[in-house]
């Protein structure tokens, strides 16, 4: 075996890449994980994780200089002083927006597993059946039962806290004890139950924060500083979870600064023989070889690698034979919701900063209901008390005002929707060869937007949010509905979808590229629809399932 030859190559080190590395190495495969960015070492490199709020020069805010340097990141909450180093350098890695697309990236070991929102929900049976039933996109080649054991497997290792709510729309998993609702959330949950019976539900969020010690990880300390990196390893990330497991096998090599520019396709074997890597520091080119390649570069970059792997046989890229590569860009559309004040409970507060909220699972277009759109949406939210520096009506300045600042303000309740986006063939990404990144590589051009179905859904998302808060006794309710630009959900999906037919899909039911069956794509690119639940847990389950299949097929000499 030459120095550059392994059993398996994993491209990317985020949530799905970490899982691929763990599964493949635990099954005995010598594996190299290629990460385009720098290394971030667990705990040691979480440089801001143990700072107090007053230690940040702008107390976590954003400066004009940051706004200038991060023209995309500034569009939403991610741009802030506390974890700026975890977000991609936009000058080095530009992209083209034929239509506005908010692409929030993290190029380093661990990828966005360090900054993710951690909400972890199983999909339901109907989510996998929906495309076939509605005649939208392509039918999922798998059903809930195919993924069910892998969901459990992923949950047990990742550590998901949650309540077993017994809802068919949101299947229960292998949970650690749930986090608590605060007094206002408990009250809202009770009013919900009284008003909606069981037709709508209000449950504690299911989150990849552990509530019990788990392997070498300490349970959540309620700091709510997850996106700085957790010194306790209390939330699932590559660094806290899959990477140590993979390293423990002795089978893993991690190579940071390794931009995979293409997959090397062998037209005789009709398989990939390896990948080409551009060293991001030295600009040297290397080749690595393996029997199996897992593409986990994050949804759109996974598609980029396939598209950039054009050969004379596949001029539009590896996996392009169906004409669907790069198409069906999806994300959850959000930025719609409502909030208001809750009266009472003035003598109650909460102690500790819970890194979790509440969840309202989908209830629309179920049990025979037919809205003027298909599919549905869920809400995330929570109850909290207004902070110290709120406006105090009777006082505006002075000593008494200063003292009053130590009293918490009114209780508020907020819910924000996450809506399903349909797969549209003309929502697409393409290679723009006229624009190059720092390394001279072509960049992606985005041409995707929400359409009628999503726009109609957003009307319900706003109105329902108001209605539900009113039913829960919330006062002074205000609703909002933003523009619904795609990308900002950071639930990127599609562009190399799974399917049953090589003519209409890029991947088969085991996440194998139809055109090169030892290449597996198991991140968001593989998704054939989005459901409305946060998708990362599904990537974990899908990756573990695909890795298991890959090893079985290798043993049978099928790939």
């Amino acid at each position, binding site marked *: 075996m030459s120095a550059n030859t392994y059993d398996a190559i994993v491209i990317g080190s985020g949530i799905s890449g970490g899982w691929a590395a763990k599964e493949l190495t635990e099954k005995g495969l010598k594996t190299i994980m290629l990460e385009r960015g720098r290394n971030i070492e667990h705990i040691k490199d979480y440089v801001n994780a143990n700072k107090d709020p007053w230690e940040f020069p702008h107390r976590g805010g954003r400066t004009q200089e940051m706004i200038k340097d991060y023209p995309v990141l500034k569009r939403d909450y991610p741009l802030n002083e506390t974890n700026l180093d975890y977000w991609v350098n936009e000058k080095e890695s530009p992209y083209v927006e034929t239509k506005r697309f908010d692409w929030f990236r993290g190029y380093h070991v661990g990828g966005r597993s360090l900054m993710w929102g951690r909400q972890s929900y199983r999909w339901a049976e109907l989510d996998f059946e929906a495309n076939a039933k509605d005649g939208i996109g392509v039918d999922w080649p798998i059903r809930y039962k195919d993924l069910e054991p892998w969901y459990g497997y992923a949950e047990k290792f990742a550590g998901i806290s949650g309540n077993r709510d017994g809802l068919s729309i949101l299947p229960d998993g292998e949970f650690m004890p749930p986090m608590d609702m605060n007094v206002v959330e408990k009250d809202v949950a009770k009013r919900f139950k009284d008003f909606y019976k069981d037709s709508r539900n209000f449950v504690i969020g299911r989150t990849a924060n552990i509530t019990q010690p788990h392997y070498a990880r300490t349970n959540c*300390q309620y700091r709510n500083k997850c996106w700085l990196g957790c010194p306790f390893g209390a939330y699932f990330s590559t660094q806290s979870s899959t990477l140590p497991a993979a390293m423990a096998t002795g089978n893993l090599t991690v190579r940071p600064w390794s931009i995979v520019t293409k997959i090397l396709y062998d037209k005789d074997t009709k398989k990939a023989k390896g990948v080409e890597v551009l060293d991001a520091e030295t600009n040297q080119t290397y080749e690595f070889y393996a029997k199996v390649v897992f593409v986990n570069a994050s949804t759109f970059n996974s598609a980029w690698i396939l598209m950039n792997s054009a050969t004379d046989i596949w001029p539009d890229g590896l996996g392009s034979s169906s004409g669907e590569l790069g198409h069906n860009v999806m994300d959850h559309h959000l930025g719609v919701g409502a909030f208001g004040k809750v009266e009472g409970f003035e003598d109650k507060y909460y102690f500790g900063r819970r890194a979790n909220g509440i969840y309202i699972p989908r209830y629309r277009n179920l049990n025979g209901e037919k809205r003027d759109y298909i599919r549905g949406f869920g809400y995330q939210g929570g109850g909290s008390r207004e902070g110290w*520096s*709120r406006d105090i009506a009777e006082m505006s300045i002075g*000593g008494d005002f*200063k003292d009053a600042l*130590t009293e918490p303000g009114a209780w508020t309740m907020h819910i924000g929707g996450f809506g399903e986006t349909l797969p549209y063939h003309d929502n697409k990404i393409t290679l723009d060869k006229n624009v190059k990144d720092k390394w001279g590589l072509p960049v992606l051009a985005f041409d995707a937007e929400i359409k009628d179905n999503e726009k109609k859904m957003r009307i319900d998302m706003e109105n329902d949010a108001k209605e539900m808060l009113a039913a829960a006794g919330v006062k002074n309710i205000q609703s909002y509905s933003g523009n619904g630009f795609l990308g900002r959900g950071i639930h990127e999906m599609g562009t190399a979808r799974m399917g049953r037919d090589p003519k209409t899909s890029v991947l088969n039911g085991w996440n194998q590229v139809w055109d090169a069956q030892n290449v597996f794509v198991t991140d968001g690119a593989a998704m054939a629809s989005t459901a409305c639940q946060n998708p990362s847990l599904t990537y974990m389950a899908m990756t573990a399932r695909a890795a298991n299949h890959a090893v079985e097929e290798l043993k049978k000499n099928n790939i």
Partner: protein
Amino acid sequence: MNRRAVIRNLALVIGSATLLPSCLKNGGTPVVALKHLNINADQEDLIGDVCETIIPKTNTPGAKDLNVHLFVLKMLDDCYTKKDQKTIVSGLVEFDNMVQKRYNQSFGNLNEKDRVAVLTGIEESAKKQNKAKAPAGRNTKPQKTVDANPLFAFYWAVKQQTLFGYTTSQYFMTKQIVYELVPGRYNAHFPVKNLKQA
């Protein structure tokens, strides 16, 4: 600008750090090296006096004791657009002129009662005109757009950053309220009376 001392150690403005001797100017007041905001030392002092009037020293420390006024200057300097900074600075000038005209002396020389009267007067007229919402919440971002009325823009920006700076100061978070970097637990039924430091 060069008559003003330069602070190299930004720690000064982010906590209650000891003042470095090199950072003292003639009056003994520390000044911040401003990169973007075009104001003179007197104007800096004026901002400090407004901060101190909003959060005065009582039996507990005031804005100046906690260097909140330096934090305010830093935020005004780094976190507002050029256009907003211009509006804020012209509001500062307007404020100064208004006080001079009414009291025939500068804001800094007014007694506390008059200072409070000046600021509450601005706050009330701004609210009355519904020109701007009072700075709300524990917002980490400056207001998206500052008020078009320079006087109000100046006042709200200083007030918002004063409150933000005060309530995120080490003093406030460790001596006024209960804050722990590592709570270690979530108590969903925490009584409000346990919230303040004894």
